């Protein structure tokens, strides 16, 4: 039996600092805490407040759903630019059904809204899946590269959202309590609101499927070497269809999240969120080349993104600087990725 220690050449007892320091997730956790301290100091203590954390998580909850889907797509070697438009479109479709067809308006509120909201949820997810299937068709059958294919659906979905909504939000039933911290038996579960809880559970389940199930394994395999995956008998096209459908479904779920927050299906609810989702994925350590990445990274990356945006607002920084800072964050994240990669090559 070969001695594993000899083969690797690394003395097992001394502590190897390198993976901890270059591990993207460790760095992220560290940065998150450091920034929290910095923001707290510079905001005169205002940042360190459960209400602030609540706001961060509410923003995080929307984008992390998109980022989870994006994680699968990017690991498979593709990209999905249509997620933001899908958020808009799904909210609009739900709005059209509830407001225009069923004539339910904002007077249906609180618990009475739960039934229509469940219907809306179904509609949103189905709309998202439809968009995902269009993406899969363009990539698999028409053979367009994912960047261009999903750019096309981005435009198409955004356009449909505008046409079907008349350019204005469709205000329907809503239960605003879902957006606020859950209170169970008099105890507040702040900062977790119902919608944030849904997002958190979604991330956890998605992470399990990515890292422990065959669905995730095939996603990595295809992103790493699509030919080898095919040669091993994997139906690459069918798997990619599932991947884009999942991304679409999660975008639809995010569309429902957005609807609940706003009380209406707005044609611009998702505008720009595809970039936030991709930023979260990249900051989380997933390589845009495919084949690698971790769900926890996406979770932390999305959190960092909104910790920064919330923190900058709390310390009163010029909002235009926020753009610059987010851009630097993404550049830094890609830089660490590149460093890790070159280390492994040696």
């Amino acid at each position, binding site marked *: 039996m*070969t001695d*594993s220690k000899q*083969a*690797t050449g690394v003395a097992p007892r001394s502590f190897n600092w390198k993976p901890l320091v270059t591990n993207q997730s460790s760095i992220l956790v560290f940065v998150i805490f450091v920034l929290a301290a910095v923001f707290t100091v510079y905001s005169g203590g205002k940042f360190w407040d459960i209400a602030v954390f609540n706001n961060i998580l509410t923003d995080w909850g929307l984008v992390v759903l998109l980022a989870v889907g994006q994680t699968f797509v990017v690991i498979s070697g593709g990209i999905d630019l249509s997620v933001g438009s899908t958020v808009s479109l799904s909210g609009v479709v739900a709005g059209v059904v509830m407001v225009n067809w069923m004539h339910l308006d904002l007077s249906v509120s609180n618990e009475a809204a739960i039934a229509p909201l469940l219907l809306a949820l179904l509609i949103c997810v189905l709309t998202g899946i439809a968009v995902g299937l269009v993406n899969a068709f363009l990539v698999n059958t028409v053979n367009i590269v994912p960047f261009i294919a999903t750019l096309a659906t981005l435009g198409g979905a955004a356009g449909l959202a505008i046409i079907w909504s008349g350019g204005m939000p469709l205000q329907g039933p809503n239960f605003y309590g879902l957006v606020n911290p859950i209170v169970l038996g008099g105890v507040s579960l702040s900062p977790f609101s119902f919608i944030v809880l849904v997002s958190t559970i979604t991330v956890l389940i998605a992470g*399990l*499927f990515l890292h*422990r*199930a*065959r*669905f995730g*394994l095939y996603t*990595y*395999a295809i*992103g*790493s*070497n699509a*030919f*080898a*995956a*095919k*040669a*091993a*008998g*994997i*139906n690459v096209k069918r798997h990619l269809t599932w991947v884009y459908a999942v991304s679409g479904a999660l975008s639809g779920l995010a569309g429902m999240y957005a609807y609940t927050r706003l009380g209406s299906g707005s044609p611009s609810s998702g505008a720009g969120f595809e970039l936030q989702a991709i930023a979260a994925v990249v900051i989380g350590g997933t390589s845009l080349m495919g*084949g*690698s990445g971790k769900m926890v990274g996406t979770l932390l990356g999305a959190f960092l993104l909104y910790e920064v945006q919330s923190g900058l607002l709390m310390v009163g920084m010029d909002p235009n600087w926020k753009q610059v800072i987010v851009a630097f964050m993404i550049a830094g994240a890609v830089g660490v990725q590149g460093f890790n990669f070159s280390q*492994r090559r040696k």
Partner: protein
Amino acid sequence: MTGELIYEVKNVSKRYGSVVALDGASLKLHAGEVIGLVGDNGAGKSTLVKVLSGAHKPDGGQIFLDGVERVWESPRGALEAGVETLYQDSSLAAHLTVSENVFLGREKFKSGFLGWLGFLDRKTMIREAQEDLEKVGIAFPSANRPVSQLSGGQRQAVAIGRAVSWASKVIILDEPTNHLGARQAGEVLQVIRAAKAKGLGVIFISHTLPHVLQVTDRIVVLRLGRIVKDTPTSEYNVDTLLGTITGAIQTIKVEGD
């Protein structure tokens, strides 16, 4: 030494656009037989490999496994029938671990509901991958390391080990000794001999003519998509083999028997 006919292609052709890659090639492989498939660049070896492995469907011709005509819709069909293929350079997914690569496409699941959802029994696969590779003569530190952390030789070893441990009928090896040092190449040849001894049919493609002469029973020469010679290895030495490949030595197309 060689047993019954297990794998046969008759008159297969394949074109890519206007390029004719294979033009009526026929080949017979018997159990326990090692065939060397040689030819110059562009002769059609890789295409023939892909037709044999199910990666590409031929435009014309037939494929027989154990005497039964088969049509491979995808590599999956050939794999399930017991035909394993090692492709040039690209058999493994570098980001995945050794055991994930060994079991790629043939994963083991957890039992019960979790297994139905697709959750993998990674512990078992790691253990078995380790055992399988060792059985084939490949010593492995840990089957849980990403392939990207292995050297070129080790990766090749994993790819070959995978092919050999899964193969039940035929192994096709496309340039398995590329990028390998002399000692490691020697180990690959050992693996080929072991497979032969097990009763598998082996198709061995290589540019390294001495290796071909060492382990094969028969040599099939491909030129411009056609098989121009199919004779026992004993009829060749390095020079005559080279000459046949390049065309310096004239050949008459002969059916191997």
